[in-house]
């Protein structure tokens, strides 16, 4: 297979398997994401795409195989530890905190428990805590500016239009300083103007050196963005390649449109 291997492997899965009872949701899936790439994972509904993301981020335990990130095994780690190593994600159905401000939502990407000011330092508002807070605020503001949400910084997140809530979720993921960004159907529910903004943003993020792994249904977005495409059907990889190669692949066409009558 002719992958344009310009760059190290960021994410690698080997014979990844997940069963839900008798249903094999992900079956012997092996793939690689390279540094600086935008990869897309496509497939018909129910083919196991979101499950793959849930396995990578440790939300579900895996039933077989292994996942490596930057050369180290990450399956079995708790989700927050996987995040600290540099994998951030967004969700298909937006999961922001509606009752918190845009700023606080983004700040959440700083996590809790990975060093920094402890409980007592917060209680007594020590110099270290104040410094940390100022530094974080600056970082968060930078990200908000980067994604174009600085004008709604102090709005409650639930008051934002849907498209901007999606951007906020991406901003929150960026605050974690990821090396790999996983996007689960970022264009779902967006209009074409918003999709355009989103595509520009994803490109801009990729240009800063963050690898992107995106699940998407909108083929115009996949075609525009993806360097490399994986196709999933019934939990198995049925094809991979550039978008143009994938388009012509008979197995892919069959998975999406069904088998023609001879």
């Amino acid at each position, binding site marked *: 297979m002719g992958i344009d291997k310009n760059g190290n492997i960021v994410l690698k899965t080997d014979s990844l398997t997940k069963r839900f009872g008798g249903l094999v949701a992900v079956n012997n899936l092996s793939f690689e994401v390279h540094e600086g790439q935008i990869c897309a994972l496509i497939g018909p509904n129910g083919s196991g795409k979101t499950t793959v993301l849930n396995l990578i981020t440790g939300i579900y335990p895996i039933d077989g195989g292994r996942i490596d990130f930057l050369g180290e095994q990450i399956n079995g780690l708790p989700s927050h530890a996987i995040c600290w190593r540099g994998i951030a994600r967004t969700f298909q159905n937006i999961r922001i905190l509606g*009752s918190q401000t845009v*700023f606080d939502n983004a700040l959440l990407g700083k996590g809790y428990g990975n060093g920094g000011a402890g409980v007592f330092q917060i209680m007594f508002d020590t110099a270290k805590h104040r410094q940390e807070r100022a530094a974080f605020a600056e970082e968060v503001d930078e990200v908000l500016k980067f994604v174009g949400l600085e004008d709604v910084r102090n709005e409650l997140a639930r008051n934002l239009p849907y498209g901007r809530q999606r951007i906020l979720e991406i901003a929150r993921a960026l605050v974690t300083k990821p090396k790999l960004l996983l996007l689960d159907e970022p264009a779902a529910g967006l209009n074409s103007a918003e999709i355009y903004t989103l595509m520009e943003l994803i490109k801009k993020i990729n240009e800063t050196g963050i690898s992107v792994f995106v699940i998407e249904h909108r083929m115009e977005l996949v075609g525009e963005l993806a360097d490399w495409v994986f196709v999933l059907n019934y939990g198995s990889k049925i094809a991979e390649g550039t978008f143009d190669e994938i388009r012509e692949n008979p197995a892919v066409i069959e998975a999406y449109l069904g088998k023609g009558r001879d």
Partner: protein
Amino acid sequence: MNNIKVFWNRYGLLVVAVLLLLTPQFTSQYEFYVVQRGVQNAMLVLGLVMLIGYTGLMTLGSAALLATGAYTYGILMLRLGCSPLIGTIGAVLFTTVVGTLLGIPAFRLSGPFLVVTTVGFGEIVRILILNWEPLTRGPYGLSGFRPVMPTTRGVYYLMVVVLILLAIVTERIGRSRLGLAMKAVKEDEVAAEVMGVNVRRVKLVSNALTAALAGLSGVFLASLTGYLNPDSFTSNESTSYLLMVVMGGMSNVVGSIISSLFLTVLPEVLRFLAESRLLVYSLILLVYLRLYHVRGSSKVRAKSAGSRGRS
């Protein structure tokens, strides 16, 4: 109207503090005792603001932690001859440890299962105190230990000062990254976890803080009454603490202090009603919650949250 809200958000705590410090000047001995209990309750409820209000962990075991604090204080002084200061520190630490030991297995559960578990814990502690006679004197009650301050007024003023300091700290935690993590755990545990929040740790920290406050509240309870009996720590008590935090607006610090005072004083005010007292008490609560607290007083909080990021 808006000005009042701004004023209240900024100076509410100060107003409460001043009123509390003036209270001994114009109350009878009995009224004063009731207010003291209110302040002592408020201290525990501040902990619940963090656990239930911020972190969203519904528990009903506060009375057990209160009892742990109160009894540890009493026992340390009576059996080991500790000074009030050592007794207080020991009680707070021990209650925190007990709370954490409960929390480690219990926070694997959530929702109704967590509630039932903590109710069970409350009963275990109460029955343990009732039956461990050599240590706790069981149904005869424990007495004869010294209060934290030599005079009743001293205990009260110390309590008010501690309460106000704790209120400031609670508010500060709410605004910090820890508080944000707590609120994220409440709203969406999975999203919080995936964003790098160690959810388990946040729950345990929040629980430890709550247990520490309950322990401290127990120390003051012991100092106020001078007599401890397992009957004062039934699950009824836990329920009224829950009521106090709900009525205070769940995550509203000043609101919780006021509702703790109000709900401690109200049953005493209604005493003239004799047997229909509880009926009227419940009716007042029902009407109040129905009219005013459809979504909790979090309405006010949500608005003030907007100004928060600017600080």
